């Protein structure tokens, strides 16, 4: 028997720590765990990205931006441009409507405040359409059939657009009491936002907004 052999055996080899260099001792084990967690998270999240069908927020042509500032849905700034599909399937681009006073109302059928103000918006549009005002209802991420039924039942008389993935709502940073809706923007003939209303558009607020976007007031 060789003399250098130890009389006791290593009964718990797992209690030993061995430095094997930074890569093997730290980077690899930590990296492996991070990679496993990352892969699991990626798989859980569904991985993919949304498709771009051309609809949503689009760049406002410089020639149509009279403010010379980046478009922003705030008072005094050019309204961010969008291209959205209408209820009848036809596309509509906001900047194409310049020259006309606009009211852009973000809404949803699930929003009680939106439902409550819909009859008033219908009356408002009925009253001001002859003065050149165009009211646009931008529906947020809802099923077309449900929206169509709502429009028919309530007799909505203004164009309805679909913000399919909430892209435009995000760009416009809508913000009201019911998860961002209703949010209403009064835009003048040059495409500049003149008044923003988060929540119900009361008659008083509507009159204030119209006074700002109609030539010579309401």
């Amino acid at each position, binding site marked *: *028997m*060789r003399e250098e*052999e*130890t*009389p*006791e*055996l*290593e*009964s718990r*080899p*797992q*209690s*030993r*720590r*061995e*430095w*094997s260099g*930074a890569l*093997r*001792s*730290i980077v*690899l*084990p*930590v990296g*492996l*765990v991070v990679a*496993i*967690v990352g892969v*699991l*998270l990626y798989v*859980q*999240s*569904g991985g993919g990205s949304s498709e771009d069908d051309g609809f949503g927020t689009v760049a406002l042509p410089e020639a149509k931006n009279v403010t010379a500032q980046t478009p922003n849905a705030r008072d005094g700034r050019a309204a961010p441009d969008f291209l959205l599909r209408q209820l009848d399937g036809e596309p509509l681009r906001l900047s194409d409507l310049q020259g006309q006073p606009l009211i852009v109302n973000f809404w*949803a*059928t*699930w929003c*009680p405040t939106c*439902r*409550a103000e819909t*009859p008033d918006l*219908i009356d408002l549009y009925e009253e001001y359409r002859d003065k050149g005002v165009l009211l646009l209802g931008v529906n*947020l*991420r*809802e*099923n*077309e059939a*449900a929206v169509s039924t*709502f429009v028919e*039942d*309530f*007799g909505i008389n203004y164009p309805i657009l*679909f913000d*399919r*993935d*909430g892209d435009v*709502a995000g760009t416009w940073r*809508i913000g009201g009491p019911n*998860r*961002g*809706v209703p949010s209403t923007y009064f835009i003048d003939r040059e495409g500049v936002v003149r008044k923003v209303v988060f929540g119900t558009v009361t008659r008083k607020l509507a009159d204030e907004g119209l006074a700002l976007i109609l030539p010579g007031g309401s």
Partner: protein
Amino acid sequence: MAEASFGRPARLRWSDYDPLRLLWRGLVSVRFALGLIGFLALASFAGVVIPQLPIEMRGNPAAEAGWLEFQRGRFGFLTDPMDALGFFQVFRSLWFVSGLALLVASVCVCTANRLPPIWRNVFRPQTRVPDEYLAHSDASIVVSAANAGSLARELARKRYRVTTAVEGGATYVFADRYPWAQFATFVSHLALILFLAGGFVTVVTSREQQVFVAEGEPAYPVFAVDDRDHMQLYVEDAVGRFDDSGFPLDYRTSLVVYRDGQEVARGVSTVSDPLHYGGYTFHQSYYFPNGAQLKVRDLTAGRLVYDEFFALTAGAATPQIIVRDSSGNVVLNDAIVPTDFIGDTAGTGVTLPGGRQFWIGARPGGEDGPWQLIVFETGRTQGAREVLGPGQTLDLQGLTLNFAGMTEVPSLVVKGIPGLEDEGVAELSQGPSGDLLTVGPVAGRALALSPGEPVAVGNYEYTFGGRREFAGITVRRDPGSVFIWIATGLFLLGLALTFYTPRRRLWGKIDSGQAAFRGLGGRQLAIEREIREVAARASAAE
């Protein structure tokens, strides 16, 4: 003079200052790991004791500010510093998450660094030991064993992998059973890492929202409209089943999930079997039977101006009456839902069997006195008004009317209904032909609406869309739960391997009809018993 001689301290090497090596030393230190666990335990305790910002308020600056203002009443001047340090969101705070990440790093670095010695021990085990090791009187087991071959066979029968070597007339035996069980420690450590990672992932990425939706109500939003995961839930049918005592047996809801206008999932959700979509589960968590849909049309404009769903969550006191015929048979047993008011009495017209018509109402007795039932036969103006207390009976010539007491029907204070005077009350009850919704006051009276039967008052037409049951749905996504399930499985596997298949190694030397053994793996008594059993079987087999 001779110079004093001092032991020279060991020279520090450059590698001792290597920051990665210093980090490694910290990460493999048991003290460091225990300190970290203690810190996280204290932090968790703080997270349980100190009020935490509710999940639904996260990301809503206005709600967060309001909640913080409320906490100011409790924590005073400490509120702002506590908020800045993350004490109101302990489990999402940077310091807590960093501590958790450091613990994960510590465990995985420790685990990784144990691998080489264990790997060697499993795949290149020491098969020979010095005679001094076997001669150790406390630990060695001496048995009679003339035949090394039969001893080895018996060990093999016990699932040992046996290697023998003959040297100098003696036979050296090494028997190894379940060597791979030594890796169980890695399985357990991996489980621990995944538990921690699961907790981390849950804290950082889990989402939950409760929604309360009525059957047929417009698809209800889940998450904000500008949220990447914004969805809408449509309840086709909500069902609650109860036993005779009213104990709930089953809640189930037929759900449709919409995303960006498209139907993406459809199915039935129950308490224990949720609907799944896109990593989210849709659990039935609540059921409420007393909902109603009311539609109002503007008759002039010819369009709908109101379409709402109520959950009638309050209760309205109504009198319960029992009418019997001359034979004592019950001909009516019902709650009287008021549709009219006469002074302080709320009541309604009731046609009793036989065609006689009465107005029956109730009014508070005043000063905590019992309710009073007011009864008079319509068309008669004198001597017909009767006042009954609870339990009293009135003779109606051929019929008896008993005021059984007050009961409750589902009700709700309502506002904003076209034609309604400011605010009013809606009540849901059972009428002669099924569900009955009473809403009022509209033009000074309560409307009694049966499902699908429009009632026109003034410029408006009111339609009770029918009873609508509500479903409470919990929408939840917890990527961490996958980690926790895997970790639980691994943890149980590690325990099973450790306790049911422990590694055991035996070293023996057989010489002159005697065998001396020593073993590792388990208690000394168990090792000794096993070796003696094997030796006895080997002797019997010879």
